[in-house]
């Protein structure tokens, strides 16, 4: 192989030994995705070969030398039908197969562990339920379903883990979710794949998959002392949410215990599933999500809580399984000066007092 440039040869060998066509399969969905990909590559190769062979053989057989006079052929309905139906059938198979995978990637199982990810120019911030924060990195345990709840603070970003074959846009103003279950410990690429401005190509990081023991160790090492729900609780108190959401008989707001995951009847009619997105929306645009039997008196917190703050609140509300906790909070807020009459109807005032910028 002396005639091949040694540099090129080195490169080739390096590439072939490294990773040939696909990144490692490190999640449960990856082999399924790859199976479909291989099927599609196979179909494409066959299709391409058929076309190439036909062109090549016709070119040889019917070149002017061999075949000086062309025979005029109008067409053939049978052939037209063949190459309409066969590709259509194959494409439909791909459609159904692909839709099944799409369905799996974006339908998290009920017991998934939820990690929040906030994208901003140009970093990823991950928030674990235990209160661990990470930037441009995500530590996750192997063999456990992880759901990511994504949001962006500014522009569109996209959270991509090629080794897991998953990707989801983080969009401003709305939660999106994706889930995966890592199968192999190791460190994998995290990319932002949606163009997001100057340092788009530096919005990268590491996904670190740990064995369950290592993960526990990591959790213990990187704890910030307060869980996310505890952070939320503090915020809940300082924003005086318990002034209304206190589960007393005369409460102006609905009780929030066990509200997560339930079907709520709205005063505008209709019911809604109280998920993360709903909780977030009803903090920011409360008048559109008034629970039946209550007045639309809650002020909006748009522009007053950071996305991380909202996440903490959402996480707190999610974990509320009794009114006892709220009433505890209430007792503490009662001690705060000027906490009475915060949510006076129609007055935008309370926001000023309860403002917490994280």
């Amino acid at each position, binding site marked *: 192989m002396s005639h091949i440039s040694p540099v090129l040869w080195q490169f080739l060998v390096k590439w072939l030994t490294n990773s040939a066509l696909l990144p490692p399969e490190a999640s449960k969905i990856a082999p399924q995705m790859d199976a479909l990909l291989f099927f599609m590559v196979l179909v494409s190769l066959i299709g391409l070969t058929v076309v190439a062979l036909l062109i090549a053989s016709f070119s040889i057989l019917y070149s002017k030398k061999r075949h000086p006079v062309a025979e005029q052929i109008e067409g053939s309905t049978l052939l037209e039908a063949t190459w309409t139906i066969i590709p259509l059938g194959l494409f439909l198979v791909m459609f159904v197969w692909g839709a099944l995978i799409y*369905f799996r990637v*974006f*339908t998290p199982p009920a017991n998934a562990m939820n990690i929040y990810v906030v994208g901003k120019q140009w970093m990823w911030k991950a928030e674990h339920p235990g209160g661990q924060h990470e930037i441009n990195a995500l530590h996750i345990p192997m063999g456990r379903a992880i759901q990511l709840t994504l949001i962006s603070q500014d522009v569109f970003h996209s959270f991509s883990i090629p080794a897991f074959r998953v990707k989801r846009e983080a969009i401003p103003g709305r939660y999106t979710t994706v889930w995966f279950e890592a199968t192999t410990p190791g460190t994998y690429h995290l990319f932002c794949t949606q163009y997001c401005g100057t340092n788009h190509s530096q919005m990268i990081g590491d996904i670190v998959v740990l064995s369950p023991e290592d993960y526990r160790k990591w959790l213990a090492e990187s704890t910030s002392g307060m869980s996310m729900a505890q952070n939320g609780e503090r915020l809940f108190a300082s924003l005086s949410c318990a002034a209304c959401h206190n589960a007393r008989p005369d409460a102006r707001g609905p009780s929030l215990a066990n509200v997560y995951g339930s079907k709520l009847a709205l005063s505008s009619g209709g019911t809604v*599933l109280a998920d993360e997105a709903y909780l977030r929306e009803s903090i920011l645009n409360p008048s559109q999500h008034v629970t039946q039997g209550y007045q639309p008196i809650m002020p909006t917190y748009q522009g007053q809580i950071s996305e991380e703050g909202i996440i903490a609140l959402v996480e707190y509300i999610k974990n509320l399984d009794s009114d006892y906790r709220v009433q505890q909070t209430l007792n503490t807020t009662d001690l705060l000066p000027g906490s009475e009459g915060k949510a006076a109807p129609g007055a935008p005032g309370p926001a000023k007092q309860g403002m917490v910028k994280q």
Partner: protein
Amino acid sequence: MSETSEHAHHIVSPKVYVVILFALLLGTALTVGASFVDLGLWNPVIALAIATSKATLVVLYFMHVKYSTKLTKLTVFSGIFLFLALVGMTLADYVSRAWGQW
């Protein structure tokens, strides 16, 4: 439409225009009147229905589509169709987002 031929240029008589004018004015009065009555869900439906019939009158008579070639009719139709496709398919996304995950 027997009077529609490829080349005969149909001249609509002023009488027709006057009739249409009064129909349009009447339609406007009706729709304004209807808007002050609370009909719930029917308010937008009625308003849009009257607007559409007014628009249809304008297209058919003022714009001579009634007397035009098939090609013109097809053009108008394809415009409406694609307009509805743009609005409809985009709205379909927004409406079905509220249905939740699956």
